[in-house]
């Protein structure tokens, strides 16, 4: 533990420390999901695996996109593309708070010098038909994580209950590293032969995507893609459980869920383009939720969900 109690020096070192910490606590180290998502929760390793009776413990980094948060790389901590670190353990262990605090120590937050607080923040995802109770965790007044006990996902009661931790990596790292602007944050070791800042890696893309998200993205195309993803999701779930070719029972919850994720992201893009009115917004969210619920219904029928 001595090495890790020294202050980390880069963004990536914080990620690596979280990885080794949660690996040491028995979590499977998964990789990011290979699709555009708004948050780490959308990864099927969280959304779907929180369902059903099978125990689960996984952690992963998830690149996340929130088109409306784009600020052309100028805001000190708002980004349209950022990283979340996600931990999901089912059933939630009784010492989850202590485990979580251990992870903060692992990335160099000295509990004796900082003020850590658990402030009520109930989590709800209208698009996923999911909710849970928990907190946002504050370190010296800054929200560093979201801590949630999942109660429902896709309209299904979670039993057992999963404990979910979500770390906003950039913000957390900026704080630990003492950086004021995200673009100034060292991405790799500052003493590396080629030191790279967060800005070196992402400033260009933040500008490009901010422009595209807000002003260029073709809303008709996005709209069409949304409809297509929705139709495909429904079509997949409408298939018979038994695959006529192999004769096996193969419920395609994951391919269907991919389309649900797609629809959700397309909705976010349309929202950023400002073409969705308040009433339409509710309708879109409702449509995505319907997909998420059907995916959840399908997943709980699979072998992955049942003991």
């Amino acid at each position, binding site marked *: 533990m001595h090495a890790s109690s020294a202050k980390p020096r880069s963004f990536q070192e914080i990620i690596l420390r979280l990885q080794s910490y949660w690996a040491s606590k028995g979590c499977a180290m998964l990789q990011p999901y290979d699709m555009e998502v708004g948050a780490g929760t959308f990864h099927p390793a969280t959304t779907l695996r929180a369902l059903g009776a099978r125990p689960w413990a996984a952690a992963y980094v998830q690149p996340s996109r929130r088109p409306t948060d784009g600020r052309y790389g100028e805001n000190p901590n*708002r980004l349209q593309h950022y990283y979340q670190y996600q931990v999901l353990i089912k059933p939630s262990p009784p010492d989850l*708070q202590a485990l979580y605090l251990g992870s903060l120590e692992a990335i160099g937050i000295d509990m*004796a010098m900082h003020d850590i607080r*658990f402030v009520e923040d*109930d989590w709800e995802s209208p698009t996923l038909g999911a909710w849970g*109770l928990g907190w946002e965790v504050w370190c*010296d007044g*800054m929200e560093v994580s979201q801590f949630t006990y999942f109660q429902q996902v896709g309209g299904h009661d979670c039993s057992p209950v999963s404990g979910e931790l979500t770390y906003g990596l950039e913000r957390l790292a900026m704080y630990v590293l003492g950086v004021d602007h995200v673009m100034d944050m060292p991405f790799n070791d500052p003493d590396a032969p080629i030191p790279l800042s967060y800005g070196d890696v992402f400033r260009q893309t933040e500008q490009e995507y901010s422009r595209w998200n807000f002003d260029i993205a073709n809303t008709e195309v996005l709209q069409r893609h949304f409809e297509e993803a929705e139709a495909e999701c429904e079509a997949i779930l409408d298939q018979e459980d038994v695959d006529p070719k192999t004769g096996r029972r193969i419920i395609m919850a994951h391919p269907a869920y991919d389309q649900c994720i797609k629809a959700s992201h397309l909705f976010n893009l349309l929202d950023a383009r400002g073409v969705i009115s*308040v009433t339409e917004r509710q309708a879109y969210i409702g449509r995505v939720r319907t997909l998420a619920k059907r995916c959840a219904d399908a997943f709980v029928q699979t072998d992955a969900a049942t003991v």
Partner: protein
Amino acid sequence: MPDLLIELFSEEIPARMQARAAEDLKSRVTDGLVEAGLTYAGAAAFATPRRLTLAVEGLSERSPTLREERRGPRVDAPEKAIEGFLRGAGLSRDQLESREEKKGTFFFAVVEKPGREAPDIVADVLETVIRNFPWPKSMRWGSGSLRWVRPLHRILCILTDEAGAQTVPLEIDGIVAGDTTEGHRFMAPDAFSVTSFEDYEAKLKRAKVILNPSERAETIWQEATNMAFASGLEVVEDRGLLAEVAGLVEWPVVLMGEIDEAFLGLPPEVLQTSMKEHQKFFSVRAPQTGRIERFVTVANRETADHGATILAGNQKVLSARLADAKFFWENDLRTVDRQGMKAWTDRLADVTFHAKLGSQAERINRIAALAREIAPFVGAKPDLAEEAARIAKADLASEMVYEFPELQGVMGTYYARAAGHDDAVAAACAEHYSPLGPSDDVPTAPISVAVALADKLDTLTGFWAIDEKPTGSKDPFALRRAALGVIRLVLVNDLRLHLDRLIDAQVLRHQIDAKADAAELRDELLAEIAKHGVFGSAVRTVVERAKASAPAWIEKITNHDSDLSEDLLSFVHDRLKIHLRDEGIRHDVIDACLSRNEHAPDDANVGKDDLTLLVKRARALSDVLGTDDGENLVQGFKRANNILAQAEEKDGVEYSFGADVKFAESAEEKALFAALDAAEARIAPAMKQEDFASAMEAMAALRGPIDAFFEAVQVNDENEVLRRNRLNLLSRIRQICLGVADLTSIEG
């Protein structure tokens, strides 16, 4: 007499739920104990972020033994009946007594319900309370099925008497009650055992936990104000925030920090809202300028550097937040600079207000039209009132209000000023939402009043028109608040409005499609209705003219049913009664001023729609009823009215005219004639001048003569001439009094 100590130790309880939860724990446990036959001397409950604690003093050691006697069947009853009785009593035949009574010999069962020991009762009660606790939201965790606000970790439950402490035997879903707890999460995390409440509270304090929430709040407030004072500043008081912050810490450590110079130019409301909502900071201002210059934050621990790291962190977070706020502020100002408020009002066309009531833009058009019509009655220029109404909600589309909805209106005022609107017009953006509650300030600036009234009346008429009225406890659109807002706006500003006309006009505006044809004619007609009512002669003229061009909406006006408006007006009257109740004016007094009795003179001033007049009259009536004369006058009036009513029913006529003093026999009767003449002479002009106090006083002066009359004179005299003359005299009493108020409505 043992004392009971309970602590339910969990993960962090939401601050907003703590106080209520402590109260619920107290009432549910003590109620349960009492119901089970125990008594106690006193109880107190406390909450911290991680614990709910209840201390009960002087609990009885056991519940009393209860002896119950039951009479069974006769000894010679069929075997089956006796067996049934035995089963019910849980006894065998030899345990029964037989007693001789008048009707025969009966079996008797004497059942003794032995008292129970306090620990058993406490265990039962506490388990029931935990399993049925009324959390606003509760959850499950792990693989268990128990519900609590957040995972429950420990139950401390001990009974303490002279002999020492005893743990109450209890286990709930694997949590075994004990005598241990733990201290502050970071500063003193070790577990320790306790023997009594005093021991518990003292050890907690040593373990860096202040148990009592009011002590924590007090500490925070004291230290914050001292710190601010030392720098020549003052803390902006916020009791809600104080209670919340006290619920977020077990060991409050107050820290004061500076706000970066770059942000001091933001409007104070923005600084305050951003700091409060996001950071739970108190604002600290310079008393002379009112400028917010610093903040106070409350940490949950002491540190070796006396909070320097914590404060620096908080300051950094604040700067990032305020950078965001500044970004919105500057963007909004740029927008206003380029396009004025129109940039936003245009966008409101796409924002739905309510599925059946159209977009925000349509709503604003309606409010603007009504504000224009109200303007002359409140001393505002119609053009300015309309201008204000058109921009009053524009800020709903601004970036700042999107981020901080609670700044609606306030931002509008800043932006309207920046856009070059008149100050009074700009002020209406913030003020037209008021009053929001019974104690909120009421706007008095004429333009703000016009827009505020128009806004609230539009909301009320709209939801009335689509039949979404409040029912029982359900009032999702805050219509009661809107009605109270109308009432307070009228009363505080002493406005003389015909509410029914405004309501009729606005109901029609809702019913006629916003995109109706012949719009100019429609506007003219609605303005005329707002001014002179649906029955005004000018309205008829315009309707005739409109018929010529036959717009589709004309039927809406010719078929206008005023029931809807009447119903809404009586809803307003109901809110008025509740509002005046706090002033000590009874509802029946208001009813007496609202209802017009069939026997009242034609010119009885009713004025149901003129709230100012109505209240003035109700106050005067209430005052006079508070006097001895007034109270007795009502009795005298009722007596006269009853005698009259009976006689009228019997005789099948209405006694109204012709009382002649020449038939008066006694001095008392003659005196009453004189008194009525005098009262009439005073009341009529006083009513006309709305001098209700004088009218009421003149009426109350009748008390003596009326009482004396009834004392001395028999109304139903055998002489029919005398009887009729007296009945006609009584009818004068009735008529004069009813001209002032419908005294038949007065209770008692």
